[in-house]
C-alpha cells in the first residue's frame, strides 16, 4: 500500500470513522461502547478478586438475611406483632441489593485511575473513539456486573422468604426497591467515575471515596425508615432525585473527562502558589486600579449573569408566593380566637422597636446593630455558598428562597391580623433595606448557580483545578465587588432607617 504525501490536501483513508459525525448513525455510535463493555466484562469475570466477593455478597448475604428474618419473625410472633417483621422485610431486600453495589464502587474508582497507574490507558486514548464512547463504555461495564449480582441477590432472598415464610411483596413495593437499588447504583458509579477520572492514583481515588460512601450510607438509613413507614410516594421522589443526581454526575464526568487530564496529570501535590496565582489573575485581571477593575471585570461579569439573575428573580417571587400560600392555608385552618390568643403583643413589639430600633427586634426583643446584621448575613451567605458549591448551586438557591417564603408568610400573617396592608408591609418593613439587599441576594444566587453549573461544564482545555479556580474567582468578583457592598449598605439602612419607618407605621 502506498500513501504518498498526504499533506495537506490529500487525506489518507482508513476503516475507522474520521469525525464524531462519522459515528452519528444511531446504533453505530454504540459499537465502540459495546466493544469496551465486552472487554471490561471479560476482564472482570477473570479477576478472582472481583468475583469472589461478588459471589459471596450475592449468595451469602441473602442466606444471612433469611436467617435474620426467621429469627426476627419468631421473636415478634411471640408478641403478636407480625406486622413489624413484615415491614422490615423490604429493608432486608434493600440491604441485600446494596451489598454487591459496594463492589461496583471499587471497580469504578479503579477504572480510570487504575488503568492510568498500570499504563494500559494510553493505547485506548490513541484509539479513534470519542470521549463520550470511552466514558460510557467504562461506566456501563462497571455498572452491569454488580447490578446483575444485586438483582440476583434480591431474587434469591425473595424466593427464600417466600419458601420459608410465605411472604410476598406487592408489585409497588418491589418496583420501588428495585428502582432505589438501580438509581443508587447509577449515582454511586457515576460519582466514583468522576473521582476516578480526576484522581492521580488508585490510592487517591480511594481516599476520595468517602465523598460517595457517607452520603449513600445516610441515604440508605433514610430509605429504611421510609420503607418501615411504607411511604412509597416519598421513596419515588427519592428515586427521581437520585436519577437527577446521576445525570448531573455523569454530565460532570463527561464534561471534565479529557485525555489530557488523564495523561498530563502526574502530580497530586498541592501547589498553593500556583493556585493563588491562577485565582488572583482571574479575580483581578490586568486592572491597574479599582475603578478599572469594576469597569473591566465586574461589568462584563454582570452582563454574563443576566440569564441566571432573571431565573433567580423568578424563583424568589415563587418563594414569596409559596410562603404566602402555605401560611394562608395554615391560618385559615386556625380558629379566630386561637389565632388572636397567639398573636404577638402589639404594644410589646412597639416597645421593643423603640428600645432597640431594629426590625429584628419586633419579635426577638434583642438589640441588632448594623455590624450584627451585616455579620449575620455574611455568616448565612457563607453557609449558603458552601451548600451551593457542593450541590451544583441547587441547595444554595433553595436556602436563599427560604427567607423569601418567610416574607410571604409574614405578609399573610400581618394581613390576617389586620395590622397593615400588603403594600404597607413591603414598603415599610422590607423595601427600605430590601431595595439593596434583594438585588444582592439575586446576584449572589445567580453567581452561585453559575459556579455550580461550572462543575458540569467542559473545562475547555484547562485542567479541572485551573477551570474551577477561575470559576471561583468569577464568583468571588461578584460577591466582593457587588454583593457584600450591597449587604453592608442594606445593614446600615436596616439598623437605622427601616425601624423608624416601621415604628411610624405601626404607631399610627
Amino acid at each position: 500500500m502506498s500513501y504518498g504525501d498526504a499533506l495537506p490536501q490529500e487525506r489518507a483513508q482508513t476503516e475507522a470513522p474520521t469525525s464524531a459525525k462519522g459515528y452519528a448513525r444511531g446504533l453505530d455510535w454504540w459499537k465502540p461502547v459495546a466493544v469496551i463493555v465486552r472487554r471490561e466484562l471479560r476482564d472482570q469475570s477473570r479477576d478472582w478478586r472481583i468475583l469472589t466477593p461478588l459471589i459471596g455478597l450475592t449468595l451469602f448475604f441473602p442466606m444471612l438475611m433469611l436467617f435474620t428474618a426467621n429469627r426476627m419473625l419468631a421473636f415478634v410472633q411471640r408478641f403478636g406483632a407480625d406486622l413489624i417483621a413484615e415491614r422490615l422485610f423490604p429493608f432486608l431486600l434493600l440491604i441485600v441489593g446494596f451489598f454487591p453495589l459496594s463492589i461496583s464502587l471499587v471497580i469504578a474508582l479503579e477504572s480510570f485511575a487504575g488503568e492510568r497507574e498500570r499504563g494500559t490507558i494510553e493505547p485506548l486514548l490513541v484509539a479513534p473513539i470519542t470521549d463520550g464512547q470511552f466514558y460510557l463504555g467504562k461506566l456501563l461495564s462497571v455498572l452491569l456486573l454488580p447490578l446483575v449480582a444485586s438483582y440476583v441477590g434480591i431474587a434469591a432472598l425473595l424466593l427464600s422468604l417466600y419458601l420459608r415464610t410465605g411472604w410476598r411483596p406487592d408489585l409497588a413495593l418491589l418496583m420501588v426497591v428495585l428502582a432505589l437499588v438501580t438509581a443508587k447504583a447509577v449515582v454511586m458509579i457515576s460519582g466514583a467515575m468522576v473521582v476516578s477520572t480526576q484522581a492521580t492514583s488508585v490510592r487517591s481515588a480511594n481516599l476520595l471515596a468517602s465523598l460517595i460512601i457517607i452520603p449513600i450510607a445516610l441515604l440508605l438509613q433514610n430509605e429504611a425508615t421510609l420503607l418501615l413507614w411504607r411511604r412509597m410516594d416519598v421513596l419515588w421522589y427519592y428515586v427521581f432525585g437520585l436519577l437527577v443526581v446521576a445525570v448531573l454526575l455523569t454530565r460532570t464526568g463527561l464534561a471534565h473527562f479529557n485525555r489530557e487530564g488523564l495523561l498530563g496529570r502526574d502530580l497530586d501535590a498541592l501547589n498553593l502558589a500556583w493556585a493563588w496565582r491562577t485565582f488572583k489573575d482571574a479575580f483581578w485581571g490586568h486592572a491597574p486600579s479599582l475603578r478599572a477593575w469594576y469597569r473591566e471585570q465586574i461589568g462584563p461579569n454582570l452582563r454574563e449573569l443576566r440569564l441566571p439573575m432573571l431565573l433567580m428573580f423568578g424563583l424568589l417571587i415563587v418563594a414569596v408566593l409559596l410562603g404566602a400560600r402555605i401560611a394562608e392555608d395554615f391560618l385559615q385552618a386556625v380558629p379566630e380566637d386561637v389565632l388572636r390568643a397567639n398573636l404577638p403583643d402589639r404594644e410589646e413589639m412597639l416597645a421593643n422597636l423603640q428600645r432597640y430600633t431594629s426590625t429584628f427586634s419586633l419579635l426577638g426583643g434583642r438589640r441588632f446593630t448594623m455590624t450584627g446584621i451585616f455579620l449575620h448575613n455574611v455568616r448565612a451567605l457563607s453557609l449558603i455558598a458552601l451548600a451551593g458549591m457542593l450541590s451544583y448551586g441547587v441547595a444554595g438557591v433553595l436556602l436563599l428562597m427560604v427567607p423569601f417564603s418567610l416574607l410571604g408568610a409574614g405578609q399573610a400573617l400581618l394581613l390576617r391580623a389586620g395590622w397593615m396592608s400588603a403594600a404597607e408591609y413591603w414598603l415599610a418593613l422590607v423595601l427600605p433595606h430590601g431595595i439593596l439587599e434583594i438585588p444582592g441576594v439575586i446576584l449572589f444566587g445567580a453567581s452561585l448557580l453559575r459556579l455550580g453549573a461550572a462543575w458540569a461544564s467542559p473545562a475547555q482545555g484547562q485542567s479541572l483545578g485551573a477551570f474551577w479556580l477561575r470559576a471561583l474567582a468569577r464568583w468571588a468578583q461578584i460577591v466582593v465587588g457587588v454583593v457584600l457592598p450591597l449587604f453592608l449598605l442594606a445593614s446600615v439602612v436596616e439598623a437605622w432607617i427601616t425601624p423608624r419607618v416601621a415604628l411610624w407605621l405601626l404607631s399610627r
Partner: protein
Amino acid sequence: MLKAEHLAKAFDDFWAVRDVTLEIPAGTVLALLGPNGAGKTTTVRMLASVLRPTRGRAWVAGYDVSTEPLAVRAHVGVLTEHHSLYRRMTVYEYLDFFADLYRLSGAQKRTRIERWLTFFGLWDFRNHRVGGLSKGMRQKLALSRALLHEPPVLLLDEPTSAMDPESARRVRQAIASLRSDERAILICTHNLTEAEALADQVAIIRRGRIVAQGTPAELKTRYLGPPEFRITFARPWDGRPPALPGVRVTRWDGQSLWYRTSQPRVENPAIVRALVQRGFDVVRLEEVPRALEDVYLKVMAQAAAEEHDAATAATPAPEVA
C-alpha cells in the same frame, strides 16, 4: 505526511514543549532524540491528538491534530512509552479488541492479526495470556497493535527499548520495511546507534525546543566539521607528510594521512592522483567514522552554554556602591 509548526504545550504554568517544528514526508524515518523530560513524549501525544497543543499547529496524514482528533487517531499508529497491556487477555484477544475499536472487518481482522503475530514470532503464543509473556514479547505485541490498522503515520516511542538483540533487529527490519511502504515514521529513542541506522532525518530536542535538525550527515558536518578521510600507503614514509596544496591535513603517522574536505567527490580523486604521481602507493582511502553520539553531545553542550549565556545576560548586574 506529518507536519508540525511551532508546537507548544503547557500544563498549567509548566511548558513541557516550547517550540517544535518538524516535517516528515512519506517514506521517511525521523528520529527524535533528547534527554529524559525534553518533551519527546508530549510531542508524540500532541501528534497523536491525545494532548491539545497550547500553541502551534500540526497535521497528520492531512488532518489537523487540534480540530480533527478522531481522524488523526484513525490514521496514526502509536507505540506509547508505557505500553502496559491487559494481562488477563490472551494475545489474540488483545489484538482482536483493538481491531474492533479500529473498525476492521472480520476478514481484515483475522488476516492482519495473523500477519503481524507471525511477523513478530508471536503466532504460536496467540492463546497465551499477555501477563505470561516476556517484556520483549509484550513490546512486540504492542507494536503489532500499533500496526494493526495499517496507519500511514507511525509514532514509536522507544520501539526496541526492552528487546533482546535479535528481537530488536526484527523490529528495525520492520521499521525499514514500513518506510519503504511509504509511511512516515517518527521514532523517539535514546539509542543513538539505532537512530543512525534507521533515520533519514534526526531532530534533537532539549527543554521543549528543537535545537538541531537535519540528515545525520548534515548534522555531522554542521557540528563536527567537514568529514575526515584517511589515506593509507603501502609502505611507511620517513619524513614530512607529502605537501598537498589546498588540503587541510589533520594528522600524519608516517604511513597514513588524515585530512578534511567539504567536497570529497571533487577533492578525493585529485588527492589520490597527486599522491600516486609522486610515487606513493595508495592502498586505502576511507572516511573516518563519526558517531551521531558526538553530534548529540556537542549539540547538548552548545545549547546548555547558550541557555547559560542568555540567563546571565538577563540577570541585572549588582550595583556598586
